[in-house]
């Protein structure tokens, strides 16, 4: 009796231990921090069917000749494309460059943020894909600016230029200037790889590295590092040469005309 009881307790303890270990060790299901409620998904579907469906098709399946399918793009792509005004396009033949976002998706308003989240939740729930990070704003700005700069020059500068002044690709496509991109937009761009940009998943650039890159861009863009005076657009020797001629040489020719005038 005691022996049977002992065995029973042992099995019970083993089962409890196994169940506990299972609960502890098996990873939690991959979902965003805030569980999207069905209401939010429904709201997102409504937005999708109003603003996106004509090009991207029902059920994110795409419309031949009009727009790609959105299965697997994730809400990171939704946030980047819609909050920067790239989507929805104003006209079918637009190239999808940054513009003022539609008022209902303006990330600067509560309504716009809620709509962006809802649209993202619908896309995420229907097709899956890279997710918008849980952090926002200052939480996305890393601390090691110099390390970010090195990574930026290695991964980003070949299209976006040393300090985010943009550049060119072939066939009339331009990598955007980074003057006005928010940390969220830069982060989701790296995650989703819009247009010609490669995807920088968390294995290529860890979240910390992405945040350092964002910190670097913020520290050098605009006139944030201009100890020497007017930046001349920071486009390098092109504008400097222009100034050498248009300001320097023209001023000197004026001087010579003054000194050399017949008195």
């Amino acid at each position, binding site marked *: 009796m005691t022996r049977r009881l002992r065995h029973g307790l042992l099995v019970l303890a083993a089962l409890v231990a196994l169940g506990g270990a299972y609960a502890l060790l098996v990873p939690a299901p991959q979902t965003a921090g805030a569980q999207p409620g069905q209401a939010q998904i429904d709201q997102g579907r409504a937005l999708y069917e109003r603003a996106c469906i004509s090009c991207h098709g029902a059920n994110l399946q795409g419309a031949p000749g009009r727009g790609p399918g959105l299965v697997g793009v994730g809400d990171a792509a939704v946030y980047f494309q819609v909050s920067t005004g790239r989507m929805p396009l104003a006209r079918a033949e637009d190239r999808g460059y940054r513009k003022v976002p539609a008022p209902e998706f303006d990330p600067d308003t509560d309504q716009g943020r809620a709509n962006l989240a809802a649209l993202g939740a619908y896309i995420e729930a229907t097709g899956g894909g890279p997710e918008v990070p849980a952090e926002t704003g200052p939480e996305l700005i890393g601390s090691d600016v110099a390390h970010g700069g090195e990574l930026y*020059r290695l991964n980003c500068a070949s299209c976006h230029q*040393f300090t985010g002044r943009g550049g060119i690709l072939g066939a009339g496509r*331009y990598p955007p200037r980074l003057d006005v991109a928010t940390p969220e937009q830069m982060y989701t761009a790296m995650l989703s790889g819009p247009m010609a940009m490669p995807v920088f998943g968390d294995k290529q650039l860890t979240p910390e590295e992405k945040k350092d890159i964002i910190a670097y861009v913020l520290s050098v863009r605009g006139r944030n*590092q201009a*100890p020497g005076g007017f930046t001349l657009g920071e486009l*390098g020797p092109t504008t400097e040469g222009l100034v050498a001629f248009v300001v320097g040489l023209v001023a*000197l020719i004026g001087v010579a005309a003054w000194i*050399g005038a*017949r008195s």
Partner: protein
Amino acid sequence: MGLVARSLARGTANAFDRRFKAAGAVRRQASHVFPKHHSFFWGEFALYSFAVLVLSGVYLALFFVPDTTEVVYRGPFEPAQGLYMSRAYESVLALSFEVRAGLFVRQLHHWAALVFVAAMILHMARNYFTGAFRRPRELTWLGGVALLALGIFEGYLGYSMLDDLLSGLGVRIFSGLLLSVPLVGTWLHWLVFGGEFFGDIWISRFFVAHVFLVPGLLIALIGMHVGLVWFQKHTQFPGPGAREDTVVGERAMPGFASNTVANGVCVLAVLGLMAGIFQINPVFLWGPYVPSQVSTYIQPDFYAGFLIGGLRLWPRWEIHLGAYTVPAPFWVGLVLPLVMFALLAAYPFLERFSTGDRAAHQVLQRPRDNPTRTGIGAMGLVFWGILFLSGATDVLAASFDVPFELLVWAGRIGLLVLPPLAYVVVRRICVGLQRADRDVLERGVRTGVLQARPDGVYVEVRRPPGGADRQGRPIPLEYGGARVDHRPATSPEPVGEEPR
């Protein structure tokens, strides 16, 4: 006070004269007559920019360390904190952020370099289009061509040795061009870099060349150039009294001397203002050179723009001779600039050969008076200009929203089509301007006043500058090569009518 100063000056001058017998020579040189024209001050821009370059360069050389040793940055510039970089680049960051006036002097040096070369181009164009290079001044012209080539090379060396990411890509191009030379390319590369790209001695070599060899050559050539202008006398534009055998102008002292000193002070002022107002080449933002990194908008300074433009336009035509390959950049990166400079240097001799004009010329020509030369000059400038603009195809494409490929093809076609077109158009403009001048001299200045002839025809009243003879016919004047006043006469004097 004035009395003391005057007696001091007299005492010093007398002391010098007793020891060196200088009075005669000084009087002769001080009486040297300089023709005056505003464009004769353009060459001085380059001279005074060079003086600024030497002075600011000495200050920079006190702090720049030409060393490729890798160090970790621990200075005040946060975006570079903890990065690996060469000692050279670190010293430039220190120079920019920790040395008193370091950033200002560096910007002054760079602006002066750009203006130096730009002023040489301007000065050369003036000399070309007015025929100042003709006998007896061929040597001055050759010296000028050498100065331009050396000036470009000197600028490139200085821009490169900072070892930042922007200039490092230019060094890589230079290395590639050396390697592209048939047969001896590898040897040339080893000669300059001491090994494969980029080794660890190139900065000290570039530095020695930049602060010692090339400036020494530049100073020697500038001395020769200016000395020749002094001893051969300056050319002059034709005008009242200004002929081949007489000079009209101001004496060296005090007229010319005060003008040139004022010009020098103004050059310093303009360069100082530019250095203080406009940020130039912020190398701290470009980052240290790392071969795996690259950026968009990679350009050289403007004077090397025509080289990069050629490289961007030239098709990928490789020549394979058995085991040997002549890569495409060789033709456009090395042969083309050599041909361009050779033509520039040979121009005075080519013109003499083709026109048979062997006479000595002290008097300049107006560009319109030699349409062929002016047309050829326009052709050369357009050729250079298209190469130059093509060096910035990326910035132009992004700034003006034009596809990059379109610009490349526009450059390729333009390079072949536009220079001959420029020749034809400019030549025709010159001929037209000549005719307009002759028209004024032969028939008179237009007055805008119409006169009815008895037969009912209206003709414009002309006022001939040479007056009219008794029959009322204008007395034609000979064109003397000087500017003809085309402004409409304010008080029309009808031809043939005696002034009352």
